[in-house]
């Protein structure tokens, strides 16, 4: 037996999810110049920045127009109803923080002239088709950050008389 000393040391059993390993963006004005996007979401509006100089609609929201480098941007409301351009369902391989939600649908939604990705709530993969109408919904995290999702507009599934 070796004479070298062995000692068990303590470490935390679990390390909580640090903010920079969380997928949801930091939203507070201390951390981002686009906190207005999240303030608008809290009021039920999905918005993005539009350049006042060249008219370019910018996604994701910017502080400087990537087209003409103007800093004169305004908030543009994208509306609340979109159309499903493409979708899939996460069945295997979800990242940390989403494993518990499996299976769930995600998609690309055509809204306000943009194609943006989002969670699609309230439907299974088999229930969806390209072109379906979807409605904006807002989710609030336990730490009061917010994010946008869409849910399938249930009315379109009513049988045609």
């Amino acid at each position, binding site marked *: 037996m070796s004479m070298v000393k062995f000692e068990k040391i303590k470490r935390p059993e679990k390390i909580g999810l640090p903010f920079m*390993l969380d*997928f*949801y*963006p930091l939203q507070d004005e201390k951390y981002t110049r686009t906190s207005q996007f999240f303030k608008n979401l809290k009021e039920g509006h999905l918005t993005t920045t539009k350049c006042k100089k060249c008219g370019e609609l910018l*996604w*994701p929201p910017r502080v400087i127009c990537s087209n003409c480098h103007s800093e004169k941007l305004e908030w543009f409301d994208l509306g609340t109803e979109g159309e499903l*351009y*493409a*979708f*899939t*369902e*996460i*069945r*295997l*391989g*979800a*990242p*940390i*923080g*989403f*494993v518990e939600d499996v299976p*769930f649908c*995600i*998609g*690309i939604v055509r809204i306000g002239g*943009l*194609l*943006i*990705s*989002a*969670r699609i709530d309230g439907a299974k*993969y088999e229930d969806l088709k*390209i072109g379906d109408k979807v409605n904006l919904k807002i989710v609030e995290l336990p730490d009061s950050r917010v*994010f946008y999702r869409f849910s399938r507009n249930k009315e379109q599934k009513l049988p045609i008389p």
Partner: protein
Amino acid sequence: MRQVAIVAGGEAKAGRRAASWRDLVQEAGKALFEDVDNLSPKDVDSIFVGAAQPERFAFLSYVAPLVAEHIGVTPRKVIARTELACVSGQAAIRYAWNCVATGMSDIAVAIGVEKMYQPDMAEAQTTMTCVLDREWDGVNCFSAPPIFAVTAQRHMYEFGTTKEQMALVSVKNHHYSSLNPIAHLQKEVTVEAVLKSPMVAPPLNLFDCCPMTDGSAGVILVPAEEAKKYTDTPMYLIGSGQYAVGNVINNLANLAEWAPLKLAAKEAYRTAKITKDDVDIAEVHDCFTISEIMEYEGLGFCETGKGGKFIEDGKPYIGGKVAVNPSGGIMGCGHPLGATSIYHTFEILKQFRGDVDMGRYVKGAEIGIQHSLSGAANQHSILVCSRELR
């Protein structure tokens, strides 16, 4: 500008390896210098390390000096890590090529490495999901399988591509990888097995997806006029194309047609002074079955929307119109992100040398292209390799 040759390659066995990030790079480094005469690690003046996400996969930054130290290279001209997600390895070759071409370096190593297997697979998936814009697309779980799932859905919707056509890519590439001793997966699959494999993200089944793989591979670049000092069978870099459009999903050119690939291919063929018909071997980025189908189209081997029929008609096999992924591709060999392009480039060199299993040998090949893509397929990179100096 000088013309540049690749005179050696080396690779670690790809797979789910009982080996660490730094173990893998040592294996590739040793193999690399065993593949060349009259050249030792001390002769190398520059090194480029392709590594996509060592911060997350190995919790290491600043990896270029670490790699140089482990393989015995003392860089005195240029040293850097190159990161371009799944194209990090080709980025390393490009930088090495540029440095040797301009005279900034005389002997450069490009080596890639990635360690994808970790105790917790959800952590590995988390890492992969940071590749797309994490705050706007990653947050919606658009990582590699889902973005290619919606790509496949749009290709099927717009062009009528079928699941069976996609499965044929998996069958072909698993067949070739079954003959490749360094490949991760060495078992053949059938169309039925692909269609019955577990659903990852519809319409993609498990065997429509490449595996998570550990691996490392490297190549050595020297001026073309010096190449024969080190080997009787150098391979010459004769053309290149690279093009990126957008990043976040909204700003992609199109889901079902890869415009940046078409532009990169046009530039690669122009700079190499060849046409698509001159390509004998295409080692392309088959991260998912749909990717290879869209690459037949983007590289000009068939018309847009006809990629499914192209494989149904037997065109991308050895002995067909063009040998696509005779290595077994990413589907069969695996996809250690930073090393993938370098494995594929070395495969073309091995093909030119005739140093592969005869069951996957492309006889008489003169021109090979190595294509890699990254992100939501918004960026495409192509190298053109030639057996003869042209």
